[in-house]
């Protein structure tokens, strides 16, 4: 069994289970939407920051989209490892000698697919709810940021989800471990999306260094997960 076939098999299995259970559709998406609406309730009465034409909500929309993504990511990660622990499947995977790196990338791919859909819907929500505008010249930057951040977040989520899977109090441990670590993605992706949308008069060129930060993060955690996932889920 090759690495890619195993990863594909694991990703397919995870996505099939999610499609069957509809947890992501019925619980995580509504949760993310509620978070976005609550942000709007909290911030819509504030005027535009001095020196800009944007409202406060428009100005902070990229950060709010990524914050809602991070909160939803916690639920998705909990879910992706809950299906493994419900009947001891993660133990069975360890015991069967399945390539841990392939397992890591399979679960990362499935998580990334779900996150990508979620992020796209959150961006649409921001456009509808906060009045955010996407300028055509920023689309390439926006899509690149979306891809890099999705892979990075999925890799971190899988790595820390595996770490917390066997721990007592994993539901509370996971956010405690993961949220500080994903701060670079929150900052980098927010700045890059601000540049893509031209918020505060930023130029598109200002966003590319931030995409670099997010990409380095994704590569680092992808490599780290490839090497560390096996020992982490092992005894």
């Amino acid at each position, binding site marked *: *069994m090759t690495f890619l*076939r*195993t990863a594909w*098999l694991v990703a397919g*299995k995870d996505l*099939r*289970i999610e499609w*069957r*259970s509809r947890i992501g559709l019925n619980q995580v998406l509504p949760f993310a939407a509620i978070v976005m609406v609550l942000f709007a309730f909290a911030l819509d009465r504030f005027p535009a920051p001095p020196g800009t034409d944007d409202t406060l909500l428009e100005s902070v929309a990229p950060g709010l989209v990524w914050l809602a993504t991070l909160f939803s990511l916690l639920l998705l990660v909990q879910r992706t490892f809950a*299906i493994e622990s*419900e*009947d*001891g*499947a993660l*133990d*069975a*995977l*360890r*015991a*069967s*000698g*399945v390539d841990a790196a392939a397992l890591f990338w399979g679960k990362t791919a499935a998580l990334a697919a779900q996150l990508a859909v979620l992020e796209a819907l959150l961006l649409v929500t921001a456009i509808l709810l906060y009045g955010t505008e996407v300028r055509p010249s920023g689309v390439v930057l926006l899509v690149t940021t979306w891809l890099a951040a999705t892979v990075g977040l999925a890799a971190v989520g899988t790595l820390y989800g595996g770490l917390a899977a066997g721990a007592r109090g994993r539901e509370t441990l996971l956010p405690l471990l993961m949220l500080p670590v994903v701060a670079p993605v929150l900052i980098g992706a927010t700045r890059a999306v601000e540049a893509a949308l031209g918020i505060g008069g930023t130029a598109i060129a200002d966003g590319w260094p931030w995409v670099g930060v997010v990409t380095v993060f994704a590569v680092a955690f992808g490599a780290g997960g490839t090497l560390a996932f096996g020992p982490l889920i092992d*005894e």
Partner: protein
Amino acid sequence: MGRVVELEDAVVVLGAFPALAGVDLTVDVGEIVLLRGPNGAGKTTLLRVCAGLVPLARGRGTILGADLTLDRGAVRRRVGLLGHRNGLYLDLSVAENVGFWGATVGATDDEIAAAMDRLGLSGRLAVLPVRRLSAGQQRRTALACLVARRAQLWLLDEPHAGLDAAGRDELDATLRQAAASGATVIVASHELERAGSLATRTVDVVAGQVTAVAP
């Protein structure tokens, strides 16, 4: 007769606690071996050593020819461990579970179908989500996954737990059939009468040591 398990002076230390204290054990192809002993005697640890999950602190051992110290990955790929839980995905169907576990070793569709047939899981049962099956049917599905994974050594920890009388009979028949077709089975159980009638050999484990082997 081929040797499946060969342990020599196997010592396992969990934390500061010596879980196995110098175990010598050999098991040959086609045997059904019952491990019996009180709680905490080391039966589960012994199974996990044979599965390549717990490293030896001292001693040596081979499982299906693979060295327990040097190549635990190879041991894991050849062995099937069924603990107190079944290791199934409850939202997937029986066929999808068996298919998934078979695919992890590159099993063909025919092999997967044969594994399900062998455990009586074809037909209507095959498409049902595992969550909707009885405990006995779920246990049979887990065993079908071991067959599809081409596990040559089955390590079962309290396999009768949670099963009704019919489920236990089904399980015993399955294990006898597996042994007859070349698999080797080691069972840790407190159900001495039932497991004893199934076993070809009984091994007593007390305080991390093998104290008696019969016959």
